[in-house]
C-alpha cells in the first residue's frame, strides 16, 4: 500500500521570468486517490504535463512508477492514462472508433481492443451511444468517454485534469462515483485536479492545495483544515429577527467566537467550539426571535474560500 507511484522532488517550471510551479515536492502512493486543488492558473495543469513528460521541468526530478518522466516519457505514457481538461474526440468517428484508435496507438491487437472498448463503454454507461458520432455527444458523455479512453491502455495511474468541468450535478455525481469505483476495482492510483472542492472532498483520500505554483498544504481534509487554520473550524448559521447591532456586539463578546458576519438570511458565526446553545440563549435574551440554527464543519469549500479571504487580508495589511 505504501509503494510510491508518483514522486516529485523540488520541481520548478519557469515560463520566461515567471514560475508556474516552484519547488514542488509531492509523493503519492499506490492505490491512493489524490486531489490537486487550486484556482485557475495555480500550476495544476503544468504539474500534470510534467508528470507525463509533455513539458520539461526547469529543475528538479519527476518520477512516475519508478521511471524518469523527463528521460523516458514514452514508457511513462504507457503506464499512465491522462484525461486532459478540454478533452476532444474526432468528431466524425464514433465513440467506439475513437477508443479503438487509442488502443491501436497503444499496440493492442484489434480484437482485444474492440472487446475492451465495448467493456469500458458499458462501464461508463455509453453502450447505447457507442455507434454514434462523438460530434453529437453531450459534454457529460464526452467526459465519460474520456474516462473510458483513459482506461483503454489499462493504466497503473490515471491523471484527470478538471474531470468535472462543465457537467451538470447529476453527471458529476455519476462521474465521481465511476472514478472512485474504478480506482478501487482496478487498484489504480488516481490523481485528479479540480477547483470544485466539495466534489473532490467526496472521493479523495488526500488533497494538496496549490496556490501560485506552491503547494501550500497537503493531507486529508481534516488535517488540511488544521494546517491552514489552527483556530476556528466551525461555522454556525443563525436565522433570527430582528438583528440589532447590540446583538452582534454581544455575540462577538462571547469567548469562543472568532467572527460574526451578517448575511442575507441572518448571521454566520465562526467559532472554535460548538456553542450553539450559548448563541441561541443570547439571541433569546436579546429579545429576538430565533427561527433557525445550524452548524457545520469546514468543508474544502470553506477552507479554500477562507484561505483566499484571509490571504487578501494578509496581503493588504
Amino acid at each position, binding site marked *: 500500500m505504501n509503494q510510491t507511484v508518483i514522486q516529485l522532488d523540488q520541481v520548478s517550471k519557469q515560463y520566461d521570468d515567471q514560475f508556474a510551479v516552484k519547488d514542488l515536492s509531492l509523493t503519492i502512493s499506490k492505490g491512493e486517490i489524490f486531489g490537486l486543488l487550486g484556482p485557475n492558473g495555480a500550476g495544476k*495543469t*503544468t504539474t500534470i*504535463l510534467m508528470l*507525463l513528460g*509533455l*513539458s520539461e521541468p526547469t529543475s528538479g526530478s519527476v518520477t512516475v512508477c519508478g521511471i524518469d518522466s523527463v*528521460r*523516458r*516519457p*514514452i*514508457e511513462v*505514457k*504507457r503506464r*499512465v*492514462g*491522462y*484525461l*486532459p*481538461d*478540454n*478533452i*476532444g*474526440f*474526432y*468528431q*466524425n468517428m464514433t465513440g467506439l472508433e475513437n477508443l479503438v*484508435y*487509442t488502443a*491501436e*496507438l*497503444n*499496440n493492442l491487437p484489434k480484437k482485444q481492443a474492440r472487446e475492451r472498448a465495448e467493456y469500458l463503454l458499458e462501464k461508463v454507461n455509453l453502450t447505447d451511444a457507442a455507434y454514434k458520432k462523438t460530434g453529437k455527444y453531450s459534454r457529460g458523455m464526452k467526459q465519460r468517454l*474520456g474516462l473510458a*479512453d483513459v482506461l483503454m*491502455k489499462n493504466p497503473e495511474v490515471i491523471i484527470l485534469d478538471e474531470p468535472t468541468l462543465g457537467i451538470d450535478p447529476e453527471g458529476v455525481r455519476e462521474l465521481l462515483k465511476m472514478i472512485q469505483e474504478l480506482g478501487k476495482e482496478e487498484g489504480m492510483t488516481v490523481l485528479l485536479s479540480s477547483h470544485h472542492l466539495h466534489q473532490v472532498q467526496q472521493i479523495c483520500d488526500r488533497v494538496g492545495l496549490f496556490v501560485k505554483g506552491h503547494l501550500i498544504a497537503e493531507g486529508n481534509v481534516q488535517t488540511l483544515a488544521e494546517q491552514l487554520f489552527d483556530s476556528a473550524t466551525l461555522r454556525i448559521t443563525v436565522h433570527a429577527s430582528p438583528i440589532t447591532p447590540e446583538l452582534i456586539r454581544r455575540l462577538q463578546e462571547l469567548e469562543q467566537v472568532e467572527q460574526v458576519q451578517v448575511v442575507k438570511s441572518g448571521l454566520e458565526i465562526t467559532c472554535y467550539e460548538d456553542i450553539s446553545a450559548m448563541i441561541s440563549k443570547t439571541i433569546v435574551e436579546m429579545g429576538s426571535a430565533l427561527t433557525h440554527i445550524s452548524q457545520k464543519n469546514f468543508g474544502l469549500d470553506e477552507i479554500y474560500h477562507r484561505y483566499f479571504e484571509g490571504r487578501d487580508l494578509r496581503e493588504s495589511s
Partner: protein
Amino acid sequence: MKFTTGILKGVICVNLAKLKNKISFFSVQTESVQAEKGKNSNPSAFMAIVRKEFTDYIRSWRILILGVIILLACIGSLYTAITSISDAIDQAGKEAETLGSDLYLFLQLFTVSDGTLPSFITFVGFLGPLFGIALGFDSINSERNRGTLSRLLSQPIPRDYLINAKFVAALLLNVLLFFSLGLLVMAFGILILGIPPTFEEFLRIFFFLCLCIVYIAFWLNLGILFSVVFKSQATSALSSIAVWIFFNVFYSMIINLVSKSLLNPEKLTSVSEVLNKQGTVLTLMRFSPNYLFSESTTILLSPNVRSLGPLTVEQTVGAVAGPLPLSQSLLLIWPQLTGLVAATLICFAIAYLSFMRQEIRTN
C-alpha cells in the same frame, strides 16, 4: 561551355543547400530518438495514425470537392488537347504513328490547348498548390483546437510520429491522385488518338508526375508549417493562400517591374551586359517555386526546348536543331528539381522543429 558550368555550379549550390538541410533534419531526429531511449519505435502505431489521417482526408468534403474540380479540369484539358491534336494529325495527313513519335504528340496531351481551356500543366500548376494547402493548413492546429492533441500525445508514441504521419498520409493521397490522373490521361490518349507513347515519352510523363508531387509537397509543407505556427485554422489557411497568390500573381509582376529598369535598352551597352542582366532577372524569378515548376515542366514535356536562359549566337552555332534526349532534359532541370526539393524539406524541417519544441497545453 560557360552556360553548362553555370548550371553545374547551380547544381552544386542547391545540392549543398539540400544536403545541409537534410543533415540538420536527421540530427533533430536522432536527438529525439536519443531523448527517448529504449524500444520506442512503434511502426504499427505510426501506421495507425497514417491510416486514420488518410481516411479523414478522403472522407472530408474539402478534399472531395477539390478532387472533383481537379478531375473536371483534367477532363476538360484532355478534351481540348485531343481535339487540337487530332486536327493536327488530319492536316498533316501522314500516318499517325510516325507523326506521333516525331513530334512527341503524346506529350502534347499535357501541354497543348486550343485556347478555350488551359492545358493540363496549367491546371496542375494552378490547382496543385491549392490542393497541397488544403491538405496541410489545419493538420496540427485542428488537433489543438479540438482538444485531441493532448490526448493523442499522452499515448505512448514519440511526438514526431504525429507530424510525420500527417505528412506521409497527405503525400500518399497526392501520389495516388496524381498518378491515377496522369495514367488516366495517358489511357484516354491512347484510346482516343490511337497513338501509343514511346518508352521515353512514358518516362517523361513519369518524371513529370513526380515533379508535380514534389511541387505539391512544397505547398503541403508550407501549410503544415503554418498550421504549427498559427493557432487558428483561419489564419493559417489565409496566410498559405496569401503566399500562394503572391507567388502566382504578384511575384512575376514585381520581377517585371525590376527587369524593366534593369533591362532598359538605353542603358545597356554590350551584349555581355545584356546577358548578365538577363541572368539576374532569371535568378530572381527562380526564387518562386511556381517558376521553378513551370520551367521544369516545360523542359520535361517539350523536348524541343533546349535551354532555359538566353542563348547567344556562338552557342547555337553548329547545334543540330532537334529534341533533347531525356537524360539531357533532366540535366537541364536538375537545379530546379533540387531547389524545389530543398524548399520542401526546409519548410518541413522548420515545421518539425517548432512542433517538437511547442508547448502542448490547449489554452
